[in-house]
């Protein structure tokens, strides 16, 4: 072993790497960007969850204290917490408001809520949930239950609720508040994986064809065949569209594999139409190909293509609605999300898989995806201007 040779080799490598300014930049700023984004997202104060309240509680009349409504008390307590933004609703608009997303859950107090409580020492709260995000559903259930208990705890002084000696052994084990949850979409059998799966499918479908398109387009340029091709009657747009169709076949094969595997092997729940799912994912693959072609214009070699992975894919996965809905992101990050194809694919996929929606409801997202694909294709063709010379 010759230490001198090792040193000379190392020096050559250092020289080469330091000449690739982009790589050095990525080494320095890449982690900072990713870490900052992560910190912002995980630390951000979650926005108040919009919660509807339907209070039909007739209350109780108590000697010396007048009429008191336990429903009222709980509503006040809910309104005072910064977890929820409380909206008062009528009974007949519950599902409409859940559907259009203006509330994510609705607490319903029946007419005899207070009376029942006096009789059974038990508050039964009906909670209607939107249901497509299981984590969110659980959080709402837990917080409502907690808040209700807090509200009722103050009642002991009035001889209600937890005051007095329990009558029998059974009541000792009973919590004073029970939540009876019902779901608009999905339901209890849906777990977090069901919530994440649509996004997973989307990210994978886009990611692999992105790499495929990026590398094959890059190879065409580095081998000089692009110059040859441009010296034929073929136009730039024709070349890009040719790539699109050529790689499209493999994208569709991949989409089929991803969907079949998640649905039949991993037993992911899905409600909507399978053909529609296929359409959304295929559209996303088209976006992936055009993104790859566009990106290849900014890479000099395969190594630089690999650098696109953290830059293109990770922010999309974080901001595109995978874990947090776009509306819940810090306001200054939201505009970025609206430029990301994954945002719209995520929405469409979740609407189909978790809510069972059809084309009539999800078409705006599909149109935007189509528009993004079309503009990326045109941009890709335009970047080829810098091809020769």
């Amino acid at each position, binding site marked *: 072993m010759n230490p001198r040779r090792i040193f000379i080799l190392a020096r050559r490598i250092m020289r080469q790497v330091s000449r690739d300014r982009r790589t050095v930049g990525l080494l320095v700023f890449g982690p900072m960007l990713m870490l900052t984004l992560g910190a912002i997202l995980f630390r951000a104060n979650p926005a108040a969850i919009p919660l509807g309240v339907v209070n039909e509680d007739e209350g109780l009349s108590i000697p010396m204290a007048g009429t008191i409504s336990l429903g009222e008390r709980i509503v006040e307590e809910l309104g005072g917490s910064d977890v929820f933004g409380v909206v008062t609703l009528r009974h007949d608009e519950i599902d409409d408001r859940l559907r259009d997303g203006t509330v994510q859950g609705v607490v319903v107090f029946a007419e005899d809520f207070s009376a029942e409580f006096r009789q059974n020492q038990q508050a039964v709260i009906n909670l209607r949930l939107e249901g497509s995000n299981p984590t969110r559903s659980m959080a709402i259930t837990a917080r409502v239950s907690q808040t209700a208990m807090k509200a009722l705890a103050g009642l002991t002084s009035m001889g209600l609720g937890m005051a007095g000696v329990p009558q029998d052994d059974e009541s000792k084990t009973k919590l004073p508040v029970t939540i009876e949850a019902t779901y608009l979409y999905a339901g209890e059998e849906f777990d977090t994986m069901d919530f994440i799966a649509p996004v997973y499918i989307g990210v994978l479908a886009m990611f692999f064809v992105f790499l495929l398109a990026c590398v094959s387009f890059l190879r065409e340029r580095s081998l*000089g065949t692009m*110059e040859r091709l441009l010296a*034929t009657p073929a136009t730039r747009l024709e070349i890009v569209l040719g790539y699109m169709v050529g790689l499209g076949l493999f994208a569709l094969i991949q989409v089929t594999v991803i969907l079949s595997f998640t649905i039949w092997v991993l037993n992911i729940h899905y409600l909507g139409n399978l053909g529609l799912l296929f359409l959304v994912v295929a559209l996303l693959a088209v976006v992936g190909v055009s993104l790859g072609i566009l990106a290849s214009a900014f890479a000099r070699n395969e190594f630089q293509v690999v650098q696109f992975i953290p830059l293109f894919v990770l922010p999309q996965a974080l901001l595109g609605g995978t874990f947090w809905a776009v509306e819940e992101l810090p306001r200054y990050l939201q505009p970025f999300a609206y430029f990301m194809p994954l945002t719209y694919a995520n929405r469409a996929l979740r609407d189909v898989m978790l809510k069972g929606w059809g084309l009539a409801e999800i078409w705006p997202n599909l149109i935007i995806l189509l528009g993004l694909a079309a503009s990326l294709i045109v941009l890709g063709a335009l970047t080829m201007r810098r091809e020769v010379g």
Partner: protein
Amino acid sequence: MDTIVKAKDLSKHFGPIHAVDGVDMTVRAGEIYGLLGPNGSGKTTLIRLMIGLLRPTSGSVITLGQDMPNKAILAQVGYMTQASALYEDLTVRENVAFFAEMCGGASRARIDEVVALIDLQDRADSLVHTLSGGMKQRTSLACALVHHPRLLLLDEPTVGVDPQLRAAFWEYFRQLADEGVTLIVSSHVMDEAERCHQLGFIRQGKLLAEGSADELRTQASTATLEGAFLRFAESGATGGER
């Protein structure tokens, strides 16, 4: 004779570099026009301007009657780049057929004919990445002429080609010219220049002199083309008569 390419005060600058600088030249039908000059003298840029891959900084070039760049004429033009530009994971025949299709298509018989012409019948179905450098160069030539172009632009077609093959190339160029095809061939090897009908000496983006080999030798009053080139280069550098 018809004018096939006409450059008028043609210039292409890349920042401070004047790759082509005020070139006036005319190429006529059925001619083999040799662009002669050292590496980096602007031959490739000039060819790219003629075929419309680059836009002139100033001046103009008219190819096959069209002001370039213009895609319309490209089906009638064959182009061979300096380094062989082929799809390495396709076979010889597939490469030739692909470029033929891009220019409007060619019959199976024509593709066989061209493959035979470059003497690669045995390797017609081999993947290009298994071929030697010379074989790749031949395949590139086949791709450039499979569609019966009226004008062939060949950028240093004989670099890295063995003497035997080089002779075969030139014999074939001659044959094409006799059929009425116009060829523009760049080279930095002077002995190839003897085989051209018309020559242009290029140095530092400028056309130093233009004419047949004999004319150029007489003008420079030297016995060799190499000597003529040096003479013209000197007078060009000192702002001499030309």
